[in-house]
């Protein structure tokens, strides 16, 4: 062995445990999932693409997938809209306020998802805080249904996933060169114009990173979807659970899992690639 190759293998040595773990805990189960999804039915191991054809020919399954992806997109958009004002306040604040805002943003991350979700059940329920307040103020005649609705689910997920968006947006705002906004201001641009033409384009990488994180997290949030959405809203995570555990149709559940994984990662990669091109364009300009 040449000294160079010995050196290379010595450098690779520490990677081996990690690679083995990755292979055992990720690649092998994923390969098993692919294999199971190719079974014709739960009883026999005869191979076919039947499960994928079943999905493609079933409008219900396609609607469940599109609803789930749409939920992710909606929540990501809502967190984005909330994050900018929050980030602008943060940047404009002094050290004490910054610490306080950071603490408030981090607080939900330090609480379990189940606890945060149950808090939303208490807030949105028929006898919950919102309904009681509205009824006692005489604004509503009867309690509104807020829990087990699409809007309730988007609201709860937006609060739960907000830190994933707020932190990258704040980070990119902090790195924004203050001279640029001051120059725009000096040249007479309005605040809205400065935000739209200077701040937003230059902080876009952070916003996109946050958008992708929230999108993936909200689309796959089994606990919140099940508890706040209830049994009437069927989304991919609960659909996969139902097919695997309730119906015991593992091949179809495996196919659903792979389709869902591909759809989410596909969107994440596509938006990532698009944004890189777009952001490069901004840099050049």
């Amino acid at each position, binding site marked *: 062995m040449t000294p160079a190759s010995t050196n290379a293998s010595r450098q690779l040595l520490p990677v081996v445990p990690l690679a083995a773990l990755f292979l055992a805990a990720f690649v092998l189960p994923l390969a098993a999932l692919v294999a199971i999804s190719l079974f014709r039915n739960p009883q026999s191991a005869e191979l076919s693409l039947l499960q994928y054809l079943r999905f493609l020919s079933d409008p*219900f399954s396609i609607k469940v997938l599109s609803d789930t992806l749409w939920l992710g997109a909606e929540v990501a958009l809502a967190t984005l809209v909330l994050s900018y004002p929050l980030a602008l306040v943060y940047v404009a604040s002094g050290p004490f306020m910054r610490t306080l805002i950071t603490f408030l943003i981090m607080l939900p991350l330090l609480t379990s998802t189940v606890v945060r979700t149950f808090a939303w*059940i208490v807030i949105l*329920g*028929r*006898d*919950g805080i919102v309904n009681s307040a509205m009824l006692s103020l005489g604004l509503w005649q009867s309690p509104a*249904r807020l*829990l*087990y609705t699409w809007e309730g689910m988007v609201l709860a997920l937006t609060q739960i996933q907000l830190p994933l968006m707020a932190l990258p947006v704040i980070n990119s705002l902090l790195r924004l060169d203050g001279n640029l906004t001051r120059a725009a201001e000096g040249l007479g641009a309005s605040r809205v114009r400065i935000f739209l033409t200077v701040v937003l384009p230059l902080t876009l990488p952070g916003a996109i990173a946050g958008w992708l994180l929230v999108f993936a997290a909200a689309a796959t949030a089994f606990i919140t979807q*099940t*508890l706040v959405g*209830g*049994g*009437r809203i*069927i989304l991919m995570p*609960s*659909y996969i659970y*139902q*097919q695997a*555990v*309730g*119906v*015991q*149709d593992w091949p179809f559940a495996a196919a659903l899992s792979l389709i869902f994984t591909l759809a989410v990662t596909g969107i994440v990669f596509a938006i990532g690639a698009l944004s890189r091109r777009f952001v490069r364009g901004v840099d050049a300009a």
Partner: protein
Amino acid sequence: MRLSRRSLLTSGSAALVTAGLGWPRSSRAATSIVATTYPGSFDEAFRSVVGPAFKKASDSSVTFTPLLGVDQIGKIQASRNAPPFDVVLFDEGPLIPAIASGVLEKFPVEQSKSYADIPSAFRHPDGYAPVITCQLIGIAYNPKKITTPPTSWEDLWKPEYKGRVGITGLGSSLGTAFMVEIAKLNGGSETNIEPAFEAIKKLLPNVGAIAASPGALAALFQQGEIDIAFNFWNNVALLAAKGVDIAFAKPKSGAVVIRTSAQIVKNNQDPKLVLDYLDTVMSVDTQKGIEAAPWVMMPTNAKVPLTGANLTVAKSVDDLVANNVLLDWTKFQSLRGEWITRFSKEVKI
């Protein structure tokens, strides 16, 4: 010492229990088995009553693992030679595929001490372990909001309950039994579910929430989301004991009985101990324990008299069998998968 996943699991949990409860080491049991329970009231009752009774009867310990019936089959199949449990709990529906998958062992009738006390309706026709408790399905309602107690399943369709009825899908024994019973009452049968789907569509204006599971359905009463729903008797009784505004009405066509059995897993670690455990669960003393408040689980040992709240739904174990509805799950268990998916597609509010 042979280190298997199971021995690690049991010794691990035993160590945790010992550390947590501060048991003196000398009294720690020499041997131990693992049994499943259902999450919630079942688990609480088994830990409080069955665990201590087994320890007293055999000087051995049992580790309880709360799991849903359907989750158990997969876990045993994944490790047939060293299954993670020795005794598993099944409702009569999921028991059918579990038997078919070949992971269960028959019950050694001639060696059992308690078997003679179990009525024939609770013995398995093919020789598997007998039923240890029943869950009764009737109408749960909020007595503060519904002052006239409901008397039949048809009451759920009454227009005054608009937006106040709760239902759950066919993923559980609860939802499945309700749908089959509704089908039967509307001219269908255990294999013809069509009339139930038609009836449930007419029920939709009344439906306030579709719960993801029976547990979630019970929780909806606590949150005030619903005022009336089909539900399990012992869940209702436990909630009522905890001060929730909930009462139980037995429909005039009879409550639907779900028979739950504890089954022996093949390749279990100690067949003698497993039989001791089953005998303990079926024994008069243990059954009296789980029958008493706050558990109010239905006993299946004919020598156990019904007391307290249980007397409001049946006079005795024999009366329970004679005057309520027993479904033949072998006829429709294979159709359930299709029904579950159909329910998700068609039942929307």
